[in-house]
């Protein structure tokens, strides 16, 4: 028999520290597969977040520079401007990219920085124990919204992806989900395109991936993937919000 599925070369053999059923683990593998397929390990520089994936450099076998919480897009700007020949990506959670990092993210997009941001949206702050995130949904209970998020007190879930899609500097803005194998494949295609858009010099690419956090959602892994499809995808609707390569065609 022929081996048709194995660990990608660009994914170090370190066992993941992520929780059972965490979306990061799947997503890391997808990104590593893409780096292998595009043969870009030698020119890729990645910037991990502050969050569960802070240790992403233990898994991706590419040059990586750690960032303070939220600053990923500013660091990536410096990296890419200094080394435009490199493929530069940030890998950020919802707090990193749209709470503390809102200004850096927005302005990188506005400048059309030739970087790709992978935005992992699980509607909570995972690493710190499940606090409310910008993307926490109304009524969703977290450790700092124990009564459920209330619009009048805590505001609304922030759809930074939708905001960025309106910026001329943003070239490719898409939202995907990890809920099913088909959607995992679609996520991989979207991230691949996000890297291609960068290589083509078209502008900022943002891929928001709806991802489960079984531990802080207090659901089993299988239940949390169902929650993605049944609940999260209704609030954060997957789809292509902007694709400049189609507009130009």
């Amino acid at each position, binding site marked *: *028999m*022929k*081996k*048709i*599925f*194995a*660990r990608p070369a660009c*994914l170090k053999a370190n*066992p*993941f520290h*992520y*929780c*059972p*059923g*965490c*979306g*990061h*683990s*799947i997503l890391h*593998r997808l990104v590593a597969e893409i780096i292998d397929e595009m043969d870009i390990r030698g020119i890729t520089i990645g910037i991990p977040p502050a969050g569960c994936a802070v240790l992403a450099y233990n898994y991706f076998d590419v040059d990586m520079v750690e960032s303070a919480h939220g600053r990923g897009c500013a660091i990536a700007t410096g990296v890419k401007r200094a080394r435009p020949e490199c493929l530069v990506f940030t890998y950020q959670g919802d707090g990193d990219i749209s709470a503390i990092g809102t200004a850096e993210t927005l302005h990188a997009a506005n400048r059309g920085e030739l970087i790709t941001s992978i935005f992992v949206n699980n509607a909570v702050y995972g690493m710190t124990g499940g606090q409310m995130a910008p993307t926490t949904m109304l009524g969703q209970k977290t450790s700092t919204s124990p009564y459920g998020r209330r619009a009048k007190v805590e505001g609304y879930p922030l759809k930074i992806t939708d905001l960025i899609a309106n910026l001329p500097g943003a070239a490719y803005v898409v939202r995907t989900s990890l809920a*099913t*194998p088909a959607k*995992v*494949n679609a996520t991989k295609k979207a991230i691949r395109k996000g890297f291609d858009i960068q290589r083509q010099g078209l502008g900022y690419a943002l891929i928001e991936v709806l991802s489960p956090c*079984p531990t802080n959602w207090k659901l*089993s*892994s*299988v239940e949390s*993937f169902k929650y993605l499809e049944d609940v999260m995808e209704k609030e954060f609707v997957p789809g292509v919000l902007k694709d400049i390569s189609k507009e130009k065609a």
Partner: protein
Amino acid sequence: MAVNGMITIDKSLCKACELCISVCPEGAIQLSDEINTKGYHPAEFIKERCKGCSLCALMCPEVAIEVYRER
């Protein structure tokens, strides 16, 4: 023509999230009775039911599954 497949599961990596079980169309995976060093009941492969579709490997967060398929 029926396609035959096979998977190997690295039991030391498995965290028993059961995603593989939930997506397998052939019911070829189940949780075993043994306990691995992490304290989980790792998934195990029930032979003779696999078509090599790779859905399990696609969903496995731990990259614990390798898939083989007959030509």
